[in-house]
Structures are given as structure tokens and as C-alpha cells.
């Protein structure tokens, strides 16, 4: 098996890929996809720590399950908001949403 550090590095890289997506992209749907990538990075870290260091309990895995459920709820609400935006403005670009400027 690969060492734990590789798993954690993988999860860190995944986390920063997600963060880059949120900060650099302007398409709301892709920003939400990037947030999903960030959540999955945390899941991977939790699971890897659970497997390698704290294998006599299942805490990390249970956290991952709960995070998947939370992500589902978040995506449902987020996509509903995107639908409402698209109905109103016919766009999914965050830079087109600037009714409120100073």
C-alpha cells in the first residue's frame, strides 16, 4: 500500500484544485462543481486518516457519509438558486450579476 503521506498530499492537491476553481471561474455551475471537489478532498483525508491511523473506530468514514448527505442538500439548494437566477436573468455567469454596485 502507498504511504499515508501520499494520500494526504493527493487530498491537499484536490482541495487546492477545488479552491482554484472557485476563485478563478465565473460560471456558477462550475464554481459549485469546484466546491464539490473541495468537499471530496476532505472526505479523502478523513478516510485515509481513519484507515491508517485510527482503524479501531469508524469515525472518519461516518463523517464522510454525513458530508456526502450535507453535500447533497447543499447542491439541491444551490441548483434551485441557479434555476431562479436563470429564470430572472438568463445567465449563469457571476460577473453578469451586478445590479448592486456602490
Amino acid at each position, binding site marked *: *500500500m502507498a504511504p499515508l503521506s501520499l494520500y494526504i498530499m493527493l487530498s491537499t*492537491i484536490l482541495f487546492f484544485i477545488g*479552491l482554484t476553481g472557485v476563485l478563478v471561474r465565473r460560471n456558477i455551475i462550475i464554481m459549485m*462543481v469546484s466546491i464539490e471537489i473541495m468537499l471530496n478532498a476532505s472526505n479523502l483525508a478523513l478516510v485515509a486518516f481513519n484507515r491508517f491511523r485510527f482503524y479501531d473506530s469508524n469515525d472518519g468514514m461516518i463523517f464522510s457519509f*454525513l458530508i456526502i*448527505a450535507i453535500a447533497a442538500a447543499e447542491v439541491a439548494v444551490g441548483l434551485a438558486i441557479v434555476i431562479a437566477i436563470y429564470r430572472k436573468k438568463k445567465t449563469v455567469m457571476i460577473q453578469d450579476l451586478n445590479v448592486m454596485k456602490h
Partner: protein
Amino acid sequence: MGVYIFYLFGTGLIATSIVAILMKNPVHSVLSVVSSFFFLAGIYAGLSMQFLAVIQILVYAGAIMVLFIFIIMLFDLQKSEYSKDRFLWRDLVPLALILITAAGFISAISRSESIKNYVANAKLPSNFGSVSAVSFEFFGTSNSVGRFSFLFEVISILLLSAIVGAVVLAKRKL
């Protein structure tokens, strides 16, 4: 053997995730993330978390990401619309910051003692990562309550609020 599978899946995971945030077309992006979640499920299975791997595919790739695809299909986005999202020079600032932070994280991980400190090839409990372990943690046994049953209930309220919220926001006429 397991090491090579990890390398394979890990490379695939990173590659598909990078593709996901680079694609102009949101459909391509979402499909790329779906495949990255398949790789992730493979890594989970390699960590003997079989049930989590199944859930990752069924719920994450199968339900959550398909929801994304449904929404994109609903919008029928044109190329002129989504190609407005292009890389600007001022995006280099967050990009540089992220690269620096990420480098800091990687060096921290390589120095960390608790990460070096683990039992390789440890003997796992027989029910590790199985459905019975999950059910025990959530629901307990016939005369005791699971440790995470409270959080399970809280999640149910969270899902209720998400349903109500999604209906409020997306219903045509209230």
C-alpha cells in the same frame, strides 16, 4: 500491486479534476468530475472502505452529479453564453497565492510526524468499512443507541430544509 492501483487512480483523480475546472462547457466539466469521483471510489475501495466506495458512486456520481447535468440540460446553454468565462490576467493573483499556499501545505505534510507515524499493514477489525459497521455507528444494537444517531437525525432535518428551500426557490408560482 496495490501501490500501482493507487498511483493509477490518484493520477486519474488529479487529471480529471483539473480538466473539470478548465473546461468551458459545463457539461464537459461535470462529466469530468463524475469520472474523477469514480477514481476516488476506487481509492476508497483500496482503503478497504467498500461501502463508502459504493455510496460514492451511487449517491455522489449517480445522484448529485446527475442533478447538475439535469440542470444544465434544462438551461440549454449556448456556446456564446458559457464562453464568456475566460481567463483574465488578474486571475494570476489568486492563482499565485494558491500555488504558494499549496506548496506550504505539501511541505508541512512531508514534515508532519503524525503522518509518518502509522502502523503499516495493521490488522483491521473484521467489520472495518462494512455495512454492519456503518449501521452500528448510526443505529446501534437492539438495546443501545448508535454513537452517531443524533447527527443522523440532524441530517434528516437538514435534508427537510433543503427540500423546502429548493421548492420555495424553484417553484414557478408560490
